[in-house]
């Protein structure tokens, strides 16, 4: 009976426990985030297409590249209107030409991937 009374009288440090819990949670969060960022920066960063700044500043196309041609579907067909159409078509063609070799064979070549036998060196 006395023991039970003593137990009831033990002070409960609610505030202190809450602080310990908070600090513990923050410490665990910092450690796990650091580990995740380490692995992310080692490899996944290159295939993460959703990350901000995925296209670096020097790789960004200029504003004109982002322009979308929109030829009016109303109006007469005259030499002048056809010239305007050709001008817009040439503009977008130039942009396509600039990227048309983006899927060339070189990046996956043996040389680029360092899969070259010594005999060829």
């Amino acid at each position: 009976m006395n023991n039970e009374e003593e137990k009831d009288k033990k002070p409960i440090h609610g505030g202190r426990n809450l602080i310990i819990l908070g600090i513990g949670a923050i410490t665990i969060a910092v450690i796990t985030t650091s580990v995740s960022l380490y692995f992310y920066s080692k490899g996944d960063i290159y295939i993460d297409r959703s990350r901000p700044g995925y296209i670096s500043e020097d790789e960004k196309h200029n504003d004109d590249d982002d322009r979308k041609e929109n030829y009016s579907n109303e109006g007469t067909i005259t030499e002048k209107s056809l010239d305007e159409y050709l001008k817009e078509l040439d503009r977008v063609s130039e942009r396509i030409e600039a990227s048309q070799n983006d899927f060339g064979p070189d990046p996956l070549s043996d040389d680029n991937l360092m899969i070259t036998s010594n005999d060829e060196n």
Partner: protein
Amino acid sequence: MQKRINYSLLLAAVIVVFSSSTATAIKLDENRIGAISQNCSIIRERLRRIESAGAKSRVYLGTQYESVYSGLMSNFSLRLMRNGIAKQDIADQQAAFESERERFRNDFIGYSQELQTLISMDCRNEPEKFYQQLELTRTKREDIAKSINRLNEIIAKHRKSILDIRADLAGNADE
């Protein structure tokens, strides 16, 4: 006698087919096998960069093709129709462009899947398998390049058709 000749021909055909299939199998020399195993982490890193660059190019080219199809070809066809001008070659080019654009999209998906498989492979311990997958990925990449060329050809034909219409209009004006 005739039967014997037939059997000989059949045997020859089997040998030819077998030898050609083994010839296409990739034979890697020891140096290359060693290079793949030794440079595995560098190779994977480069492949990841190639994947990243490819994704960017895909988005960029896709936007340009969308601009050609929706912003130019479709509107131009509609304008021709509203002016009572029927040009079958323009309609054909528009349909061919849309069909080829769809092919470009699918080719890229196929290529991406093979490239991802390649990146996830254990090049250090399975260099020969890795190289086979690399060859497959190269083929898929080549499909995209071919698709881009075909789309360019359609745009070039389309441009020529517009010039023809313009020449007709100029001729009519002179008369």
